[in-house]
């Protein structure tokens, strides 16, 4: 059996200040390659904070986190940024596309930052990605010229731009209608099945969580011992 893609041990995040707040408390979590993991929990339970730690956007106060076999707790900011760029992809509830750039340019942004492909290769790959998400007709449009679902699909395409091993999605369907939600879910599922990319998704959506391979439930920053698939929220 191959080693897990993500190994978190005792992952803890405490916000210091006048009142100390524990966001994530001693989480042990493995994510296997090609696994679709749903992270559920009530609002304020720390599921997004856990996702940000897993995505190296935040630094744990304690604990260890290895991604793709690389221990990250002692990495410097630049190395963490490089690991995010090469290995991780993010999809947020809000699309967070750069407003002055076209869909194609937004998708090419991480590729250009990575700098491994030629201009022609980047353009071809970005076009393929957008086409695979049904956005052939919208490549030249700016975010304000697209619908919410289209923007979110562009955001997914951008997350996939550098062929990451793990996609981290924070309520990716939170702002979408049911049709767009189904589309996004189908895309993520297909991604896991066809490319063996791992997906960790934070969601309130029960139907979405039900389609994951595994679900972990977060309460007060800790993983609940027994997740209840029928009642995640």
């Amino acid at each position, binding site marked *: 059996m191959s080693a897990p893609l993500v190994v978190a041990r005792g992952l803890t995040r405490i916000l210091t200040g006048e009142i100390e707040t524990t966001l994530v408390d001693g989480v042990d979590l493995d994510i296997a390659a090609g696994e679709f993991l749903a992270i559920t929990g009530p609002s304020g339970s720390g599921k*997004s904070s856990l996702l*940000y730690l897993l*995505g190296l*956007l*935040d630094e744990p106060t304690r604990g260890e986190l290895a991604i793709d076999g690389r221990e990250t707790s002692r990495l410097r*900011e*630049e190395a963490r*940024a*490089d*690991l*995010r*760029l*090469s290995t*991780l992809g*993010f999809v*947020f*509830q*809000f699309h*967070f596309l*750069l*407003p*002055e*750039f076209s869909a194609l*340019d937004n998708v090419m*942004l*991480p*590729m*250009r*930052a*990575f*700098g*491994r*492909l030629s*201009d022609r290769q*980047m353009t071809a790959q970005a076009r393929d990605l957008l086409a695979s998400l049904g956005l052939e007709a919208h490549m030249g449009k700016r975010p304000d010229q697209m619908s919410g679902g289209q923007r979110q699909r562009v955001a997914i395409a*951008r997350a996939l731009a*550098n062929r990451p091993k793990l996609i981290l999605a*924070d*309520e990716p369907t939170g702002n979408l209608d049911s049709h767009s939600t189904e589309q996004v879910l189908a895309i993520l599922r297909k991604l896991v099945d066809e490319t063996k990319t791992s997906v960790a998704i934070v969601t309130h959506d029960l139907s979405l969580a039900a389609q994951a391979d595994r679900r972990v439930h977060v309460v007060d920053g800790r993983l609940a011992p027994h997740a209840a698939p029928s009642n995640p929220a």
Partner: protein
Amino acid sequence: MTGALDLIVSIAVTHVRARLRQTFVGVLGVATGVGFSVIMAALMQGSQEDFVAQLVDAMPHVSVSDERRNPPVQPAEQDYAAAQISGQSTPAMRRGVKNPYALMASLEAWLPGVVAPSVQARAVIRYAGRDTAANVVGVDPRREPKVSKIAAQIREGSLEALQRASNGIILGDGLAKKIGARVGNSVVVATGGGATMSARVVGLSHSGMKINDETQAYTLLKTAQVLAGQTGLVNELRIRLNDVMQAREMADRIEAQTGYKSVSWQEQNEDLLSAFAIRNLIMYTVVGAILLVASFGTYNIVSTITHEKTRDIAIMKSLGLRESTVRRIFVLEAMIIGLGGLLIGWALGYLMSRGLGSIEINLPFGDKNHLPIAYAPQHYLIAGGVALASSVFAGYFPARKAASLHPVEIIRGAS
């Protein structure tokens, strides 16, 4: 790396283009600073060069006089390590440079320039009941045109006419005007030593420097020697060098060779040149202040952009762009503003220089009727360099602040 560079450039250009009006104001601020810095430097250096050129034209580059900087060493001082000499009286010595023509030939053997003898005599020139103090300079009309511009400065008559007339004299036109003399008139020249002679005005000179034109008169060397009361006297060797900037070095060498006090034009005008140095210091301080103020505009614009783009910065960082990459984006935006301002400022400075240079104006010194403007690449390079550096400096701080933003806080806030 090229991809990252392209990315930095395309994001920076997009940000700047999206705020055209703001960018334009910032560019205009820098351009005004650069333009005025250039014109100010051009005017300051132009007037300085013009003044120095007139000064250098009006006087020898090196003047060897019949004086010595230090008293001659006494025999006792040569023989003993310590000697006290008292009651010594200064011996009456004949004035003048010894063997002037031999000395001139010896100097001309190695000196990159020409040498001409002259005699100076203080006198009063009188005509039609009016008199004025003058400095009568005895010159050699064959050699003098090689060391001074006197020949070119003759407005009426000629330098050669000194040789044709007996006791001919060329008056500065200001001096002639003071006493009402014209070419052909006879004036009386009287010295403090009691020598008096009648001289015919054979020419009028105009150097453009009022002080010279109102006090200077030229005669033949022999005539001035008679006025000074010593025949064969030469009390000054006037030297014009091929390279005016070698004057100091040559003066030192001549003094070492001859023992006579040799004064370069720089030494003679030390105070004036120091004043120019102070003036330049003031100028560059003012120019620096102008460009510093312009950089505040750049700071404001980059600050505003980084503030407006907080969310974009967060997402770029979450995607994996390094802090240094994000910082470079905003520093580049400041550079674009600085560069735009620099190019427009250069054009503005050049056009203003042309415009000011073409305005006719009566200057308090010299004959020029246009403002003296110096067109020097270093004015453009200094103003442009300072403008670009201050823009980058102004952009760096908001860029650094933007790059250090914690993406999680912004993503949480926007979700």
